[in-house]
């Protein structure tokens, strides 16, 4: 297997997904990713509006596509993602 086409990636465990979401939220909301907690509500704690959440969803999809993981978050499920934990659980369950 040629190394250059099969770069070793971190396994997409729950911790990796949490870190990915924190990093992307940091970029989108212009905040320090380290202040994002798993229990934070998108709306109440992070002031993330619906468009920011769609930015997050698209960023996660793009990141996973780069890791050759075919992944799409269903629009119908978006409304159920109220907190960082909801998003981590959702992505983790869809990948496993």
């Amino acid at each position, binding site marked *: 297997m040629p190394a250059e086409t099969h770069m070793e990636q971190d396994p997409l465990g729950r911790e990796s997904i949490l870190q990915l979401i924190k990093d992307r939220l940091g970029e989108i909301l212009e905040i320090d990713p380290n202040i994002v907690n798993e229990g934070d509500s998108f709306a109440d704690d992070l002031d993330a509006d619906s*468009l920011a959440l*769609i930015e997050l969803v*698209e960023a996660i999809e793009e990141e996973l596509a780069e890791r050759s993981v075919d992944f799409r978050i269903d*629009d119908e499920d978006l409304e159920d993602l109220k907190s960082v934990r909801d998003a981590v659980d959702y992505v983790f369950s869809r990948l496993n």
Partner: protein
Amino acid sequence: MAEKPLPVAIDAMGGDYAPEQVIQGARSALEFGIPVVLFGTEEALADIDDLETIFVSEVIEMDEDPGQAVRRKKDSSLVRAAEHVRDGHASAMISAGNTGATMASALLRMGRLKGVSRPAIATPIPTLEGDHPVILLDSGANAECQAEWLLQFAEMGAVYARDRFNVQKPKIGLLSIGEEAGKGNSLIKESFEILNSGNWEAKSQSEFIGNVEGRDLMSGVVDVVVTDGFTGNVALKTLEGTAKAIVSALLAAFTSSEEAKKGSELLAPSLLPLYQKLDPDSVGGAVLLGVKGIAMVSHGSSSANAILNAIKTANELFQDNHVENLQSVLLP
């Protein structure tokens, strides 16, 4: 050989009078020397042979949820126009359609500038005094805002006033319910403290003059008025509604009697330049500030003339490296 100028990408499907008025405005722009590319359905653009066209299969309607529509309708005129800018094939995008979806398309496809929490819509308000309109932002992108965002709006407004209207040191006012410091709701009081700290003015080469009131929107005492998107939109629509009501009342009065008709004919030469100065179609539409590209948001009722002016404005902002100028001020 000179490089071929990039066209302005236009959503031909957006607006109350689309596609006819949009096409006409685009055609005028081409005659003016600005290349354009129209995005629309084959049905809408089939007969166009003098303008560059790109066919799409979907249209985002006025009442659709912006974020969801942009995610679902990837082959819509709005999304494709935004992608054309992102990919470096167009200098700017323009739509007179769904404002929220225009913002969502620009934000999700072009991305945000670094240092920008939320993009804002900047609308030029015609003024009686002064030689340029006042810029109102945010005029509707963010209903809920934080004080730090209003600081970013002030910085973006300053760069925009300089690039668009050549105001070297823009005067910035914070919209409130009184001029004195300490007037306003909690957001405005907190924003005042941040804006009044003075740490940001040198970088954006601007001057914060304190609170202003609604009546100052058209007075020309400031170059930029900063507020949250809810208040800004209410203020903007109030101005538009008031102006429309006054014009209707004047027209009714001018035609109410033979004497009034004669009088209005005498006044017409003086009133026409005033009308032209205050005509929103002449100022070229609003712009979404804070994204990595130029995105113009034209009024839903845009005429061909309004579209033409929006195209001219977009082209000028691109020539002036407006996005790069914004980024250099907003970088932390």
